[in-house]
């Protein structure tokens, strides 16, 4: 086979796959055959590029031209123009918003979105074919494992990880080197290492993207962790709702075994290590380390009391070490480039980079990896492209249902473990939900509480009963039945649950309430005292009305209304029957004269 003169990378991340990127591949193959240049062009399906909102993403090398929102018709054009004739299709390029096309600006690395990022954990996502181990090896894959097994003692490996300052990326931010030290020190001839790929935080998809885009980086790091702590078996606990990630992990494990990079006597060092996948059913609590270990053993995913800690008594009662996917994804670069290199990024207590899954009311929904300590403002405006429709930024939620919000007044907060906890939010695993002026903060707290009530495993009363009571109070407030003392009751309950729940789920469940109360207490008070929802979200507190002066009696609203509660006739302004109105807002969007409005 001939050497390709051009590589076409098509995003095979879940975001783009659901935008039909697989069909693009098939179509491109057909088209290239038709044009007679099939042998000259190589098509590669990659992992997520991070710009999921602009997907499907297609990148053509050697030019490095990044095309966005590529349709089947567009792929034909790219084949005919760019691949056949060498003419970059300018109008399909992802250019810096508002800026004219320039020679370099269209290259992946030069877009605003990528320029400000620092990619360590995501180093290979969107650059390699995750189903081909050779491509991983080309970018220094398995070199760290080779180095560790041939040149370093387990203690030296742990020393490097400790010196790097790496902290767990799964939420709690525990120093990884310390965790490895405890597991290594624990006595026992059978030990385990495990990878937490449960990713239960709603809106988060960093771990999925790493597994889909670069599965070998996790396998290699787990083998290194096994060597450092004295384990020969690894488990990856991944939710069954991530079929692409699971499929690529299975392919990766198979390829690594074929090359002898997993299995017996790796690199002729005498070290044996293998990995198995365990599928989770997608319960939030199974991301908690002790519940996860129960689930790996085939038991109910319920947390166990600690101590004993997993380092002493973990999976099947044996010493075990659990890290998050992204934590593992940082290990190989640390081994290869040294602890100082890693520690030179970030701040004193938060080293390295962090991946965030940015969602909500933001232009560039997607995945970004930034140096720790980058201010939130930069993430939202410079990388994220700001808030759509010129709306005002109101708050960002990090840490999902365990976390808290960062209000607009604190938008310059550096994103570090300590700065975020100081303001009542948290680093969390990397979900970052952006909210604009149209979001009601009481409603947001209610959303997360609803989630924790559903996901509480029920084992301990503070969590099972307490979260339910808090949710009831929130419902009372958003329904307009709240009293001032409810707010005090909420605060008291929140503090008690935090102090008494068995596991992290219950202990952190009150956080969204406490942090919204801290920064948006006036919104709670508006709901309780004035019976108003300032953002116009809580349905029981708003009315949808028609402005008589603007109404042209066109009747579109009446046709749109799903419950037929709008009536009127020609020349007479229409009216909404408030007793039947569902407040769905469908008419409001459809009215061509903007005569319909919400009133709180």
């Amino acid at each position, binding site marked *: 086979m001939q050497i*390709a003169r051009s590589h076409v990378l098509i995003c095979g991340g879940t975001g783009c796959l659901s935008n039909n990127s697989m069909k693009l591949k098939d179509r491109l193959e057909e088209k290239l055959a038709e044009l007679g240049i099939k042998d000259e062009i190589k098509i590669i399906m990659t992992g997520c590029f991070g710009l999921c909102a602009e997907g499907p993403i297609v990148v053509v090398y050697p030019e490095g031209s990044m095309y966005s929102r590529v349709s089947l018709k567009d792929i034909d054009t790219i084949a005919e123009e760019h691949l056949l*004739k060498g003419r970059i299709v300018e109008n399909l390029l992802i250019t810096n918003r508002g800026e004219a096309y320039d020679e370099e600006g269209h290259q992946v690395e030069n877009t605003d979105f990528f320029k400000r990022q620092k990619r360590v954990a995501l180093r290979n996502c969107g650059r390699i074919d995750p189903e081909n181990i050779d491509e991983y090896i080309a970018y220094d894959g398995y070199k760290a494992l080779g180095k560790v097994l041939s040149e370093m003692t387990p203690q030296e490996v742990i020393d490097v990880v400790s010196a790097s300052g790496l902290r767990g990326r799964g939420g709690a931010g525990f120093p990884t080197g310390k965790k490895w030290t405890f597991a290594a020190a624990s006595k026992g001839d059978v030990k385990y290492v495990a990878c937490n790929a449960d990713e239960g935080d709603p809106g988060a998809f960093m771990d999925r993207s790493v597994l889909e885009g670069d599965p070998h980086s996790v396998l290699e790091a787990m083998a290194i962790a096994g060597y450092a702590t004295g384990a020969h078996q690894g488990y990856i606990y991944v939710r069954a709702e991530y079929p692409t990630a699971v499929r690529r992990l299975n392919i990766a494990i198979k390829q690594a075994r074929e090359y002898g990079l997993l299995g017996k006597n790796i690199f002729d060092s005498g070290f044996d290590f293998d990995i198995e996948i365990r599928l989770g059913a997608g319960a939030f609590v199974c991301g908690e380390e002790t519940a996860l270990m129960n689930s790996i053993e085939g038991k109910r995913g319920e947390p166990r009391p600690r101590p004993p800690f997993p380092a002493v008594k973990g999976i099947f009662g044996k010493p075990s070490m659990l890290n998050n996917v992204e934590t593992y994804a940082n290990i190989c670069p640390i081994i290869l480039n040294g602890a100082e290199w890693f520690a030179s990024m970030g701040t004193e207590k938060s080293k390295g980079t962090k991946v965030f899954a940015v969602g909500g009311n933001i232009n560039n929904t997607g995945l970004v990896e930034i140096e720790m300590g980058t201010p939130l403002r930069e993430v939202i405006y410079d990388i994220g492209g700001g808030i759509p429709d010129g709306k005002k930024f109101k708050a960002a939620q990090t840490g999902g249902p365990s976390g808290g919000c960062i209000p607009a007044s604190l938008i310059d907060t550096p994103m570090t473990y300590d700065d975020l906890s100081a303001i009542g939010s948290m680093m969390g695993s990397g979900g970052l939900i952006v909210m604009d002026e149209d979001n009601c903060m009481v409603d947001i707290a209610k959303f997360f509480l609803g989630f924790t009530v559903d996901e509480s495993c029920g084992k301990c009363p503070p969590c099972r009963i307490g979260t339910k009571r808090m949710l009831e109070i929130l419902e009372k407030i958003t329904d307009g039945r709240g009293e001032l003392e409810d707010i005090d009751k909420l605060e008291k309950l929140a503090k008690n649950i935090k102090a008494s729940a068995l596991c992290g789920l219950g202990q952190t469940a009150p956080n969204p309430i406490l942090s919204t109360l801290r920064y948006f207490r006036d919104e709670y008070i508006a709901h309780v005292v004035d019976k108003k929802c300032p953002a116009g979200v809580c349905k029981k507190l708003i009315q949808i009305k028609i402005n008589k002066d603007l109404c042209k009696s066109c009747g579109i609203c009446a046709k749109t209304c799903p419950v037929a509660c709008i009536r009127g006739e020609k020349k007479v302004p229409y009216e909404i029957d408030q007793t039947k109105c569902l407040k769905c807002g469908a008419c409001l969007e459809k009215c061509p004269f903007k005569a319909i409005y919400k009133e709180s």
Partner: protein
Amino acid sequence: MKSLAELAELRQKSLDKMNMRNTDTRERIVVGMATCGIAAGARPVMNTFVEEVNKRHLGDVSVGMTGCMGMCALEPMVDVYDADGTKTTYIHMTPEKAKRVVAEHIVNGQPVEEFTITAKDQNNA
């Protein structure tokens, strides 16, 4: 796979196939691949460049293509951009000429004067 040497060998082999995805290159070879270029035989020229660059492990050299350069009579045309941005334009290229350009210009840093567009102008003058 049993040794670091074996891994390094496989790494080099795979990397050679992927160098194209590196956009910080020392030198860029750009082949005119519009209808005029293709009709005049640009495709085998392009493929020769790709093969030669690969054979010699010139990882930091990219081979790209561009549209019509506006002088269709001189096709196949090829521009070589050196690291400092200097551009050399070669005309009436063939696979054999491409091999010489790689060996003399890219590897040894000596543009092949006789194939360049300036050589033609001087001949006509």
